[in-house]
């Protein structure tokens, strides 16, 4: 039974050029996860800074308020809902037409921004308060002190958690087919639907996801060790 299924899979994969779809899907999955995480780190850091800034003045309070609403929305709704709302409601209302892959990257970035902000906030709070004080005491402004001294240490502290967020993003990319973007899942379900043999394609898909995530886990671990060099005693 397996031989026939395998042959059918290979046939579609090679002869009907299914592999091109798989490679494109892989590329899109990587693009969405990587750029999404980068956008997420930028947004998340901004929200986290707004959250930890002392609230003597009005401006930080407003930014923090906006941040809280933002985080509340993106953590309170599923990624699919956010994708659908953006693609089928927000963009048509605004009259903007952009490529569905682009939409996915932006929505994934904004979604992960909400999660990264919480991660980043705890990371910043785990940095000893004396670090910020020392930077302020030599005359550096608040923002510069955060960027040069506190945030680099915070990122080091949260790197494992940030790695988890990246892995979540990779896995979540399997919902982008809802707005018609091509990813790994879409590629393999196309191969399967070609001759109604889904077993092998989906097994291979699972294997690829698993390999991808194992590799990422390994990379995060290596990066973590490299960044620990300032803690090491030789």
């Amino acid at each position: 039974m397996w031989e026939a299924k395998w042959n059918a899979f290979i046939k579609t994969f090679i002869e009907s050029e299914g592999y091109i779809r798989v490679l494109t899907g892989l590329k899109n999955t990587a693009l969405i996860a990587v750029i999404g995480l980068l956008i997420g780190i930028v947004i998340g850091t901004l929200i986290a800074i707004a959250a930890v800034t002392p609230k003597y003045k009005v401006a930080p309070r407003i930014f923090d308020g906006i941040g809280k609403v933002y985080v509340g929305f993106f953590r309170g709704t599923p990624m699919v809902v956010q994708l659908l709302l953006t693609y089928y409601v927000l963009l048509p209302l605004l009259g903007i037409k952009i490529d569905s892959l682009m939409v996915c990257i932006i929505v994934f970035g904004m979604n992960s921004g909400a999660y990264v902000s919480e991660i980043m906030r705890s990371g910043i709070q785990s940095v000893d308060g004396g670090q910020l004080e020392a930077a302020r005491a030599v005359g550096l402004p608040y923002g510069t002190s955060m960027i040069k001294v506190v945030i680099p240490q915070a990122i080091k502290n949260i790197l494992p958690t940030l790695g988890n967020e990246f892995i979540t993003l990779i896995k979540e990319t399997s919902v982008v087919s809802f707005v018609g973007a091509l990813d790994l899942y879409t590629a393999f379900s196309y191969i399967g639907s070609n001759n109604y043999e889904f077993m092998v394609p989906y097994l291979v898909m699972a294997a690829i996801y698993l390999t991808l995530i194992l590799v990422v886990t390994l990379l995060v671990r290596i990066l973590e060790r490299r960044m620990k060099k300032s803690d090491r005693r030789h």
Partner: protein
Amino acid sequence: MIDVINLQKSFGKKEVLKGVNVTIEEGEKVAIIGPSGSGKSTFLRCLNCLEDPTGGSIIFEGEDLADLKVDINKHRENIGMVFQHFNLFNNLTVKQNIMLAPVTLNKKKRAKNRRIKLYNAIFKKDKPLYAVSSLKDAKKEAEENALRLLNRIGLADKADVYPSTLSGGQKQRVAIVRALAMNPKVMLFDEPTSALDPEMVGEVLDLIKEVADEGMTMLIVTHEMGFAKNVASRVLFMDDGVIKEEGTPEQIFEHPECERLRDFLEKVL
């Protein structure tokens, strides 16, 4: 040089400083002693607004630092601070620790100059620019300065290591030269030896004494009574949020007047 007038600080309902009045003259070495919880550290931290005073004023170079509108960063460049727990930047090497502020502030000033130039061009005004050297020169100068300072404390070989590899005494000495690298007009020491192993206290105190002998104005919160006696030109005894007694080390240690101070000295000497 620094006029402190009726300085108050409270954390919520708890009053920590209840009106501190003192004038620091240029070149003075002032030791601040007192029981824990008397507000001596809070007082020191108020002087460069690490804690914002809740009342009174601190007049430094003609401006009131307690006023929130004052550009505190400008003044902090002139007020070096050394902490109990060193607070070296863990993400930077020893040399980068010393170079960070001079180089970054040069960049900031050049950015400000660009804004002023634009403003002058648009509004046909003549606002003066900051005097700054080019970034390359500033970096070179900061690096030379850092290496000179590290040489001075005998840690030139540690220039490129991270602070986590240093001993407590080495960390504190680096923290002191990091403050010196800004060429401050006054230095604040917040219990600089309290977190050190006993055998490292000496090297740090020696360095502080050296800096004192060069004529630096300094305020030191300390529990090292011997050091206060030898180095300070004036001793302030703080208790319960005010300065209870002040005078030369001789007056304070040999002829204490108030009951509280006699009590305190009996316990610590």
